[in-house]
């Protein structure tokens, strides 16, 4: 039997970030769960679609493209802004972090306002037919996620203004960033499925 090797507390940090931190893993799994939700909804969209004689059914026009394309660009920029701010944290540049997150929040608010301008997305609503229901649900579920991302980032921004984060203590920003990027990335399939595929075939 060997001697017991004691690991003193100094060698066991309590500030953990990235994949060392259980909370980081928690957020990763949450994103997997959310992705499954979107995957199920998109599968449902196509299930309804293959069983429908026309798409969009009932003589509805194809969804309008202009605002969704603007929104795609807005969301892409917001995602870049947050990544830029995060990169600043590596250099202990808290000011850059504040600007990055702030810009990201502002852009997502624009995204949200454009979404409200789009309304239901056409001359129909969720109760018109199954197409309207699935379109509305996917579109506004994503918008709901944008809202949550804005709220989460606001908490992070407040903490940033109070000087909470630094090179080591960055788990909070990392976690918000994972969610933020998820919301931006999941918009791509949502955009393609809801707005582009009805035009393609």
């Amino acid at each position, binding site marked *: 039997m060997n001697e017991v090797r004691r690991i003193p507390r100094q060698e066991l940090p309590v500030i953990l970030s990235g994949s060392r931190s*259980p909370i980081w893993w928690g957020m990763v799994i949450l994103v997997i769960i959310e992705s499954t939700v979107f995957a199920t909804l998109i599968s449902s969209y196509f299930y309804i679609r293959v069983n429908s004689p026309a798409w969009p059914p009932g003589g509805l026009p194809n969804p309008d493209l202009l605002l969704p394309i603007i929104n795609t660009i807005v969301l892409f920029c917001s995602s870049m802004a947050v990544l830029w701010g995060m990169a600043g944290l590596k250099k202990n540049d808290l000011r850059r972090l504040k600007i990055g997150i702030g810009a990201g929040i502002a852009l997502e608010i624009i995204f949200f306002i454009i979404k409200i301008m789009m309304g239901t997305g056409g001359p129909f609503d969720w109760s018109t037919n199954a197409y309207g229901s699935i379109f509305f649900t996917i579109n506004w579920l994503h918008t709901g996620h944008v809202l949550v991302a804005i709220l989460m980032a606001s908490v992070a921004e407040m903490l940033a203004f109070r000087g909470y984060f630094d090179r080591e*203590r960055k788990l909070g920003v990392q976690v918000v960033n994972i969610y933020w990027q998820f919301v931006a990335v999941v918009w791509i399939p949502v955009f393609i499925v809801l707005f582009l595929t009805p035009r393609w075939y």
Partner: protein
Amino acid sequence: MSGPADPTMPDAAERAELAELDRTWGSPPGFVGWLSQVNHRAIGKRYLATGLVFFLLAGIDALRIRLQLAMPENALLGPEPYNAAFTMHGTTMMFLFAVPIMEGVGIYLVPLMIGARDMALPRLNALGYWVYFIAGTSLYIAYFFGLAPTGGWFSYPPLTRAEYSPDKGLDFWATMITFIEIAALVAAIELIVTIFKQRAPGMSLNRMPLLVWSVLVMAFMIVFAMPPLMVASGMLALDRTFSTQFFNPLLGGEALLWQHVFWFFGHPDVYIIMLPAFGILSMVIASSARRPIFGYTAIVLSFVAIGFLSFGLWVHHMFATGLPLLGMSFFTAASMMITIPSGIQVFCWIATIWNGRVRITTSFLFAVGAIITFVLGGVTGVMLASVPFDLQVHDTFFVVAHFHYVLFGGVVFPLFAGFYHWFPKVTGRMLDETVGRWNFALMFIGFHVTFFPQHQLGFLGMPRRVFTYLDGLGWGELNLISTIGAFVIGVGVLLFLANAISALLAGRRAEGDPWGADSLEWATSSPPPLYNFQRIPNVSSQNPLWRSDPDETPVEVELRSDRRETPVTALLDARPQGRLVLPGPTLVPLFTAFSIAFVFLGLIANPWLVPVGALLTFGCIAAWAWPRDWNVDDTGRPGEGARS
């Protein structure tokens, strides 16, 4: 091996440390303090107790169902109460008993088995429990006030759309089922993260106890199976309350969309509740046979294989829906092939017993009963994978018999094996073995008397979910036998309750390791102290209490006892990486659960309550996420720590 968890002769420093640990891990006294507890064992016990209560409630409904069917044209229950009874029986057993109680088993046992002091996100744990509690009790309160769902546990639309089921009961069902899945998902996150990052030093993945493996696979299955259920039940709730048209065939909706999405969840769900049961069986059999389990790797691979395969079976619930035969053939093959990993496990258990020195305990009897019952349910499962055969027996009592065999063999009997095995650990008291044997005999015999005849009832053409049947169909005698058997099971369950209560009141005190078992939960006292382990144990084999590797240097991590700390280790090899500081008791999870419940109940009552609930929820989460301790980066150098 680490030092003893409850030293017999503690010196003064040791006593001071233990007292401090008790203070740190304790919760405020009183009812509010009780509500604010976040320790995993407190939450786990609540899950187990609540699950058991729902098991009894669903059992009462089962007895009412059996009484009504005991003879032809019985007038005991009318169609409405009967339809409500089978809906609530199925819903309760699946959503309020089986899934939550397996999560409870995981939440209670996993940290003990991996040598952690608590789980990764204790407040999330508490939130999950409160969500489960609120969802379950609201369903039952609605039921007692006559707002019962009558759509069956799988609630096929269009029957469950508002045109055909205008009652509020189904609104409760659809929203509460959506809501309760939050609990399942939260528990899954908890369990995965804890198993990944908080195993005792040295417990690499290939040294994890089999129960922990099964819980890990279960948690991953929940991650992929529960979201589709939430989507399905959410769509149904929207159809009912916001007049969406997902399932309205007149406006482009699809009745079969529900069945696909629901069973995409529903079939994995069966294995979600069976995998931890297989884990329990593996632990109980190894400790009864007093030798390490045979084929550890084979069993782990079986768990994983079952986890994957179970997502490719769902269409075998839909063979009568007129799908193309070629497509169904794939699902036939997959459904038959999933028996191979299950078979491998059964033979590993047989090999373990064969080469062991078995001590026949109640727990072991339940395990053997479980294997026999599960095999009988498994062979009928293979039959049901056959499309032509399924067309005859689908939705008849043959299927009822089949899945009760699988669920008693794969869930209930293993759970009772687990109850008898871990009751001493949880309560510090031993259950009576003589009563236990009667308990087993009554449940086992009662079960087979109840459900074996139901196979034949299926062939005789008795569909499931009929509140009555006419004389002259030849179903009377078998139904009467079945009803008698059901009451025998009932007596068996009552015997268990009596045994548990008398053990709690006056049972023999349990030692730390009454069975001479091998896993870490037995390395601490019974019941364990609030902090589980004073010193985090070190692991150098698959059976840390039986063997340790002399070539490995044991590691001991130094933790503070003035705040809640548990080690963080590497995912694969469990090298110590750091310490995780955990939050103490708080009421925030309870408030959060109520706020989310507000959103869901708003869907039923008044849509304008939804945004109010959402705002409340956000407030709670902000309070939750706000850092509590600005000096959390204390590395333990003296004089620096600020206590919160």
